């Protein structure tokens, strides 16, 4: 067939496309198992991290899963999934996933409570696309560690507050300077989850003042 003919070009493109697609399908098949294991290990690593379950830094996917299965149990309460771990020093810990819109994209994280269902043991943001250096700091240790020991409910009602003018109350953490939008959205998504939990605890889920 003439190389300048359109039919030749179409045939060439079709054959090339088919060969490339076959090659990619093959590679995908070949790596599918390991990729799935890695994605699962990532999940498990996040859960273990927020619950404070010790695991080796360079643990393989299979090792992580083993640590997870021998330490953490899944519980469902009022339709919400909790990961429960009996911490050797902190006692029973319950972690639950939360998510919500950030400024640029979805934000996902874990909220981990102590056995009293009121005190925060840890908060971690494991997925976010906020502005690096500003909103992106929500996944920094400095921001996340602020939540440790805070109360998710006070006499005024349920909810934590991310405030710009200095956190002093037991339900307040400092916002990130220059990232007011992200801070507000983080507060909103945390409180949505907190209200569900507080409601499930049998307390009236009152709306607190979500200023800041």
């Amino acid at each position: 067939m003439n190389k300048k003919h359109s039919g030749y070009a179409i045939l060439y493109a079709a054959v090339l496309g088919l060969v490339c697609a076959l090659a990619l399908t093959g590679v995908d098949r070949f790596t599918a198992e390991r990729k799935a294991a890695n994605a699962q290990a990532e999940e498990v690593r996040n859960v273990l991290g927020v619950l404070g379950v010790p695991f080796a830094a360079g643990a393989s996917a299979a090792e992580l899963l083993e640590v997870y299965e021998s330490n953490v149990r899944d519980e469902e309460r009022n339709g919400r999934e909790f990961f429960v771990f009996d911490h050797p020093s902190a006692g029973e810990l319950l972690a639950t996933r939360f998510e919500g819109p950030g400024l640029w994209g979805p934000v996902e994280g874990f909220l981990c409570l102590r056995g009293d269902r009121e005190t925060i043991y840890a908060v971690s943001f494991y997925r976010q696309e906020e502005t690096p250096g500003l909103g992106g700091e929500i996944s920094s240790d400095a921001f996340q560690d602020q939540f440790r020991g805070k109360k998710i409910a006070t006499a005024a009602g349920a909810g934590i507050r991310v405030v710009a003018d200095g956190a002093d109350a037991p339900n307040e953490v400092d916002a990130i300077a220059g990232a007011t939008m992200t801070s507000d959205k983080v507060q909103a998504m945390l409180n949505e989850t907190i209200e569900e939990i507080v409601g499930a605890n049998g307390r009236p889920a009152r709306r607190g003042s979500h200023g800041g």
Partner: protein
Amino acid sequence: MADKSPVACVTCVSRGGVCDGKGIQTLKDGVWASNPISIQILGICSALAVTNRLENSLVMGVALIFVCVGSNLFVSLLRNVTPRRIRMIAEVAIIATFVIVFDQILKAYYWEMSKQLGPYVGLIITNCIVMGRAEAFALQNRPVVSMVDGLANGIGYAVVLAIIGFFRELAGTGGVAGFQILSLDWYVPNQLAVLAPGAFVALGFLIALFNWLSGANKEENEGSTP
């Protein structure tokens, strides 16, 4: 991406094979004389983005070598049967295939690194160096010498990235690849080095250095001709 850049003309005059000295010349050109980053200023987007750590830079360099060699080989093998009108689409299809293969392998066997490099491995598809070499070299040359060209340009890219990555990580953390080189007793890590501005400064210095070492005289000579 000019079809007939000066670089392309220099390397494409003869149609010789690897054996008549062209292989060595091609290798020298890619790594040094027409280094894709420091001389041609191509592909600097990824060079700026992933060079905050030496390890990231090295993996990215390996990725580019793999893609460049593979795509140059196939573009060259198909150069006589590829219809001219759709050659660029064909090149992109070949390049994209190699990039995705590398990305998938990284995801399966080097998850941590895959997470750190984020979208930048996938973005190699749009890296000017890869398509530039396919267009300017592989389309006119035999498969083996085209692979050498891909290898040379990949190495040229990787070396520059490694140098930038080394100094950014060193300045930003005081150590490189887990080894503490500058004692934190007296060295305060400069966070700026690992952030975006540090990349621009480091790349600027490196390009200046390369030009000073290789191109300063040439430029003067060029300037004096009418």
